[in-house]
């Protein structure tokens, strides 16, 4: 379980997060939503200790990760898999080497076992034949899928996804969403998905947390998002629905737009 308690974060004069409280239950998939620049990725980076709060704390399995020595934090981090926005693949390595990297450093697996595990992860993300290719030879969607394969290589308890579908075409986005759902079900991991793509939210998440004006504005089951009296949340959701074909799209069609 991950708990965020009264978290504040600023960068210089720019306040990013204020009074953020959030509990993430084991096994659930929670989507952190909000406009670009609302602090979603900043909040996610706090969950794995990549950023330190100015005030407040983050607890992973009741351990305050801001208070423990760096060596203990590193052990806790090994329970996490993180998919970064651009993939963050090591560009000097091939896809195979990227996925094998955490296995080589954090396990005592033999070379054969590592090779098998890498192929297993590549199969899981449906990219069996890209092992020898470097990240520069892959498309954006493929890079994210290889990064996903690397993130799950150590079978983490927690998966953090930073904008997993941003910049991808709808079909590739759907593939990524399917993979996230599949991984959550098959590996029973706790997933935190940072996104502003409501289509993804409805596809993969159990709950959503809406960040607005530095605060956690709304938290609840995704099924409750529609019909909320909250105007800010409603406006955000509807702005997204335009893209996936709900009410506003009809208006656009009436205006003669595709």
């Amino acid at each position, binding site marked *: 379980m991950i708990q965020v308690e009264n978290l504040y974060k600023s960068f210089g004069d720019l306040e990013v997060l204020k009074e953020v409280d959030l509990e993430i239950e084991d096994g659930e998939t929670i989507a952190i939503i909000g406009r670009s620049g609302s602090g979603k990725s900043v909040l996610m980076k706090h969950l794995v200790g990549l950023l330190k709060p100015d005030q407040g704390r983050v607890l992973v399995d009741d351990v305050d990760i801001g208070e423990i020595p760096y060596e203990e934090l590193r052990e806790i*981090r090994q329970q996490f898999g993180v998919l970064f926005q651009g993939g963050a693949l090591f560009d000097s390595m091939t896809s195979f080497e990227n996925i094998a990297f955490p296995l080589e450093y954090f396990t005592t697996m033999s070379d054969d076992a590592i090779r098998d595990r890498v192929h297993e992860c590549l199969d899981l993300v449906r990219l069996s034949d890209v092992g020898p290719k470097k990240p520069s030879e892959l498309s954006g969607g493929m890079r994210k899928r290889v990064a996903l394969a690397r993130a799950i290589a150590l079978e983490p308890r927690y998966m953090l996804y930073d904008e997993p579908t941003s910049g991808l075409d709808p079909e590739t986005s759907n593939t990524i969403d399917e993979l996230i759902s599949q991984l959550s079900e098959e590996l029973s991991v706790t997933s935190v998905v940072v996104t502003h793509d409501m289509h993804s939210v409805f596809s993969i998440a159990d709950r959503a947390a809406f960040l607005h004006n530095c605060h956690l504005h709304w938290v609840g089951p995704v099924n409750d998002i529609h019909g909320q009296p909250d105007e800010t949340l409603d406006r955000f959701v509807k702005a997204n629905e335009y893209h996936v074909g709900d009410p506003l799209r009809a208006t656009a069609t009436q205006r003669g737009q595709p």
Partner: protein
Amino acid sequence: MHACPFSRDLTLNDPRPVADRLLAPFYTLGRYILLLTRAFTSLDEVRTYWGNLVTQMVRIGIDSLPITALAAAFSGAVLTVQTAYQLETSFIPNTIIGSIVVPSMMLELAAVITGFILAGRVGARIAAELGTMRVSEQIDALEAMGLNSISFLILPRVLAGIIMFPVLYVAACLIGIGGGVLIGSAGGFLSAQEFIDGARQFFKPFDPFFGLIKSFTFGFIITSVACYKGYYTSGGAEGVGDSTTEAAVQSCVFILIADLLLAVTLL
């Protein structure tokens, strides 16, 4: 409430920005020392660094050999010609040219030329590499996996620098002296025997040792400054460009300062 008539002056005299500017070098120095301390103290198993260390030794040392050799050969040759030109009199024996050129190469030129060339070649490369890793979140990815990114990235690069720079210095010395011998013989104004006799006449065993201390120091300066600049890069492609430039320029400045300090304290 009326605005204070002196408010503009007060704003101009606001001590905070000035204080920030005055303290900035100390903040940078503190962060640099902390970074290196963490790189060399919080260590994992040797196998974590070994592969990276070998790669960096090849990139910093072996790959830099051609340009170092070229610069050293030309420097040795030019120094020999110019020294011969300045001492063109029948009262001074030709062997003096070797007595001047060889210690100059050992004490100063080999180390400083190698340092300047590698500040551009190696320092800029390290800063650009780490800077790109920073802005593309590859360093965050290493940390999120549970790896100590500082020791993983910085330790092999700095170690490779302090191991390979002395090797390059020795190569630069030999090739530079070789360049001097060759140009003297080819130009017909100094035989190889005269050159070597002159070099032997005033040779001090401390000279190459002093050069090795310099090259070791310069290797540390170039790699550590570049690692610092690259690791703390921010601001995307522009930030990477800034870090790369700053790494090369500041390394050169620190080489000059270290050169003077070592000469004053050790000679």
